[in-house]
């Protein structure tokens, strides 16, 4: 049952992508629908339902979490772009690169992967390596509060997936 639901959901998502790519042209719609279904079936084989699901949390919490994470991500990627541009335009080039290894508290799978990728687009951090729960970052400026920022992003991702927030109140501000 769960498989059928996932297959239908994936078919629908793929078809929306097809619909956008063909700019709503109806002559290719049937072909697109068939291809969407076939690709969804292949994806079920390759990534069975549940591969990325961490825990089926409350639906409402997740929607809010997605919005909150998206806002955090968009806002900070703008800050990141402006920040690097500002440093580049200053004659003295104020950077102090270095590396930093953190232990992530997110569970394995897509939450960790999302954290690593999102951090690459956020201010001052670039994901270099992710081995188990060890996340190695390259920091453009070591004077920036990188750790606090990573923890903040982690908490947003945890909320999005409906994971209980990491029980740590000491390092958090």
């Amino acid at each position: 049952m769960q498989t059928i639901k996932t297959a239908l959901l994936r078919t629908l998502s793929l078809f929306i992508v097809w619909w956008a790519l063909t700019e709503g042209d109806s002559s290719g719609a049937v072909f697109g629908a068939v291809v969407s279904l076939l690709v969804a079936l292949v994806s079920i084989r390759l990534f069975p339902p549940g591969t990325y699901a961490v825990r089926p949390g409350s639906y409402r919490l997740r929607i809010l979490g997605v919005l909150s994470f998206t806002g955090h991500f968009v806002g900070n990627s703008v800050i990141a772009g402006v920040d690097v541009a500002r440093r580049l335009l200053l004659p003295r080039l104020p950077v102090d690169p270095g590396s930093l290894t953190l232990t992530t508290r997110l569970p394995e799978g897509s939450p960790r992967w999302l954290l690593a990728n999102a951090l690459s687009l956020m201010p001052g951090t670039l994901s270099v390596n992710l081995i188990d729960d060890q996340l190695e970052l390259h920091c453009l400026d070591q004077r920036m509060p990188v750790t606090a920022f990573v923890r903040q992003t982690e908490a947003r991702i945890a909320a999005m997936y409906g994971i209980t927030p990491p029980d740590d109140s000491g390092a958090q501000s």
Partner: protein
Amino acid sequence: MIEFTIQLVQVLLLITGCLFFAIGTLGLFRFRDTLSRIHALTKVDNLGLGFLVIALLPQVASPTVGLKVLLIWMVALAASATSAHLVARAVVSEQRGTEGGEGPDA
């Protein structure tokens, strides 16, 4: 009048986007190491692309074209994050290989 204002805003957004792309490329020349250069290329160029996408949205012929433009943006974001990570990992593992088991920091 409204149309003129929209066009003016679009032109400003397009110019801003192109400026960010130019600054991102400047990063290739000003930064001294590969990892810092990746910071410039991913972050600044993504912001530039964002400005271009927002500038183009009011002009789209139909909602599906708008969706397509947004799709391009999202795919470009995912691709740039992933490729930045892969290049960074390759650089660091190469550095460690040539340093022959020294400390992890360069």
